C-alpha cells in the first residue's frame, strides 16, 4: 500500500504545480471550484471542465475525454481549446435528458461570447451556471 501511495503523492505534487501553471489565477480557480461543486450538488450530475489543446477531430477528442470520466452517462464535459477557439459541450446519455442539446447550445453561445472577450474563467462559470440551472429544472 505504501508503495502504491508514494507515486500518487508525487503525482499530486506535479498536479498542484500544473494547476498553478494553468491559465487561471487563484481567485478564478476558487470561483471555478465553487461553480463546479454547486453544479454537481444541485443537479446530481457530474460537471467537468477541460481547458487545453484538442486534436482533430475536435468533437471526437472531447468525447474521448468525456468517456474517461468515471460515470460518463451522468457527466457533462465542457472542453475548451483556446488556441483553436472552439469549445465543446459533451453530455452523457442520461445527462442529455436533463440538458437537451438546444439548451447546451445556448450555454455554448454565452460561453463563446465571454471567451471572445478574453474571459475564460467568467465564461466557464456562467456556462456552468446555465447548464446546471437547466439540469435542475427536471
Amino acid at each position: 500500500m505504501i508503495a502504491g501511495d508514494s507515486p500518487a503523492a508525487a503525482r499530486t505534487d506535479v498536479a498542484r504545480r500544473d494547476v498553478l501553471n494553468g491559465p487561471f489565477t487563484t481567485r478564478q480557480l476558487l470561483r471555478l471550484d465553487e461553480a463546479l461543486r454547486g453544479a454537481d450538488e444541485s443537479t446530481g450530475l457530474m460537471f467537468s471542465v477541460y481547458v487545453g489543446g484538442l486534436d482533430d477531430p475536435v468533437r471526437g477528442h472531447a468525447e474521448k475525454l468525456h468517456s474517461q470520466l468515471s460515470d460518463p452517462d451522468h457527466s457533462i464535459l465542457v472542453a475548451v481549446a483556446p488556441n483553436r477557439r472552439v469549445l465543446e459541450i459533451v453530455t452523457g446519455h442520461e445527462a442529455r435528458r436533463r440538458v437537451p442539446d438546444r439548451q447546451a447550445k445556448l450555454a455554448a453561445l454565452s460561453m463563446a461570447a465571454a471567451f471572445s472577450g478574453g474571459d475564460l474563467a467568467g465564461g466557464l462559470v456562467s456556462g456552468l451556471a446555465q447548464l446546471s440551472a437547466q439540469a435542475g429544472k427536471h
Partner: protein
Amino acid sequence: MPCIAGEAGHRRRTRTLRRHGGVELTIPETLLVFVGIPAAVVAIIYLLVYAGSAAHNKRYRPGRPYNQTPVWYVANKSADATVSGSSAQEIGAGSGAHALAAGTAADDSSGEAGTGSDDGAGLTTVGYGETGGASDSW
C-alpha cells in the same frame, strides 16, 4: 600670452560662479548628472511598468497563442478521471482536478482515495449518437 589671459579669465569666471553658489562640473560629471540620472529614472519606470504586466500575462487573449498547461477539473472525489492511460498523462488531466478538489475542499476525505479502484476501466470510446451537447467557436 592668449593662453595666460584665457587661464586668468577662466579663474575669474570660476570665482564668480563660486560666489553665486555655483559648482563647476567636469565633462564626466555633467554626463553622469544630465544623462545618467534621467536614463536611470526611465529604466526604473520601464521596469515597474513591464514587471507589473509580466505577472498578468497568464491572461488569455483571443488570437494570441495560448501556451498554458492543459487543465481538467472535476468537482468531487468520485469523479475520477482515469490517469492510467497515456492520453490522460499527456494532457496532465484528472490529477489536476484532484489538486483543485483537495486544495479547496478540505472537508472531503482525500481526493486520491478512489484512484486505484477503477484503473484501466471505462476507457471505451462511446459510439456516435450516445452523447449529446453542443459546439461553438469564437
